[in-house]
């Protein structure tokens, strides 16, 4: 299964990402090659996951695990199998409206913590869902990433801004259209000891990367 995943990522995901997005990466050398490490990216499309899996060097690929919503990706058995074994997702149980946080509590991040403890590189989308690129292009950040950083204070948190994936395949569309995407990898952030301050630092780092990205004329 590990080999199947590796071959599919190298032979299918990479050429596909290159064809659909041009995979224009700045700062590739700042991507972590070994875990535990956390990559925190903005989220506007399923293309984000494809693109992030495509830009890691081959020797790090086995370690890269995108965190993904269990309710969305594991509800269908076929997509669930694909998500677990090919994409290699770390399932995150999102809280439904009305669900009590204390009932699910800390457990939603257990698989992600287990992956970090095993030395994996966990890719998280702190917005929690795909945004529509309105406003400053980024939704509210959920603090799960800060809780992971707190649990693994030595794991670097690498901010990544992905520009343009929302045009290739916006939320709700089914047909992707090839358009260039820029991926900007920032300097790793260290756990600062306090959640709100850490989240503010992450948000500022992501927006600073966005400012370096080519303009998106999309109206």
């Amino acid at each position, binding site marked *: 299964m590990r080999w199947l995943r590796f071959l599919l990522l190298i032979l299918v995901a990479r050429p596909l990402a290159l064809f659909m997005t*041009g995979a*224009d*990466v*700045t700062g590739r050398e700042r991507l972590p090659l070994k875990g535990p490490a956390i990559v925190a990216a903005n989220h506007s499309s399923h293309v984000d996951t494809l693109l992030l899996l495509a830009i890691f060097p081959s020797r790090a690929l086995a370690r890269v695990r995108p965190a993904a919503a269990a309710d969305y990706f594991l509800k269908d058995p076929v997509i669930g199998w694909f998500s677990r074994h090919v994409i290699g997702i770390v399932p995150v149980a999102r809280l439904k409206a009305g669900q009590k946080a204390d009932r699910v509590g800390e457990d939603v991040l257990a698989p992600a913590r287990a992956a970090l403890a095993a030395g994996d590189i966990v890719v998280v989308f702190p917005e929690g869902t795909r945004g529509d690129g309105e406003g400053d292009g980024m939704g509210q950040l959920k603090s799960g990433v800060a809780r992971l950083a707190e649990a693994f204070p030595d794991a670097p948190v690498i901010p990544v801004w992905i520009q*343009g994936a929302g*045009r290739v395949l*916006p939320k709700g*569309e089914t*047909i992707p*259209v*090839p*358009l*260039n995407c*820029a991926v900007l990898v920032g300097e790793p952030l260290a756990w600062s000891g306090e959640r709100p301050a850490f989240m503010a630092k992450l948000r500022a780092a992501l927006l600073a990367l966005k400012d370096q990205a*080519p*303009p998106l*004329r*999309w*109206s």
Partner: protein
Amino acid sequence: MAILDTLRAFLAAQPPALLAGLAGVVILLGVAGLVATVLTALRPDKSYLELRQRIASWWVMVALLAGALLAGWQATVAVFALISFMALREFLSLAPIRREDRPAILAAYLVLIAAYGFIAADRYMFYLVFIPVWAFLGLPFLMAMLGQTRGFLTTAATFHWGLVTCVYNLGFAAFLMRAPDAERLPAGAAGLVFFLLLVTEFNDVAQYVFGKLLGRHKIAPTVSPNKTWEGFLGGWLATGLLIWFLGPVFTPLAGLGLAVVAATLPVAGFAGDVTMSAVKRDIGVKDTSHAIPGHGGVLDRADSLTFTAPLYFHLLALFALNKF
């Protein structure tokens, strides 16, 4: 040994002038690489990273294009289709496009496939009218059916500009590969394409070098502040002479036809460079992407080619080729 024999037979079947030309380019790149290595060793305080990246990228581009030219028209058409695709993708990614236009973007890629299909099928008349007439009308019609009228004319013009420069004009370079042997070409059809690429890129480099050495008077200060009259004229003279002396080796051009190509092609290269600079300045970027390390995007490298390819093709058609 069988492989060596096959290789020897393959090379023996190629026009000698084409092989000599390619060997010349390889030697030129080797010398450039040597100079960069010596510079790096002599002056460790300065960074020559971009120069070395540039030369490394040249090796990749030369290998890709030389391989395609030697392999024949199918491979060359495929490589140019890829170049057009990457250039068009860069253009449409940077241009102001409306949310509703995603189907029109998809249609633009289908136009690219059809246009290169006409080249592969050797249907010259179809190729000539397809983008300037039918894509010109069809894409805006599709956009109208998509129902968004805000910024309609601007967007229609944007699509057409991208398709003509990135697909139609670059496609002429590929179409030269369909020139038949009956035309008495001194270095085959591949020699025609090789010469176009050689002189266009030589002109880019020569204008840059003359500008760096002698540049005083700005020629287009608001669009390209680094371009100077000295660079333009020096590049014109150097490229014109190159065309005049090497033209007969690779093309059937002679006399008046050769003189016209020598006089106009360097100007077209300059025009392509400056015009694409204006587009980039309007969009607000310096480079169209980072697809080619040290050079920028495909469109940054191919900007002058979008102007020189159709000019070269039409002058060849006018003065030398019976088929077109």
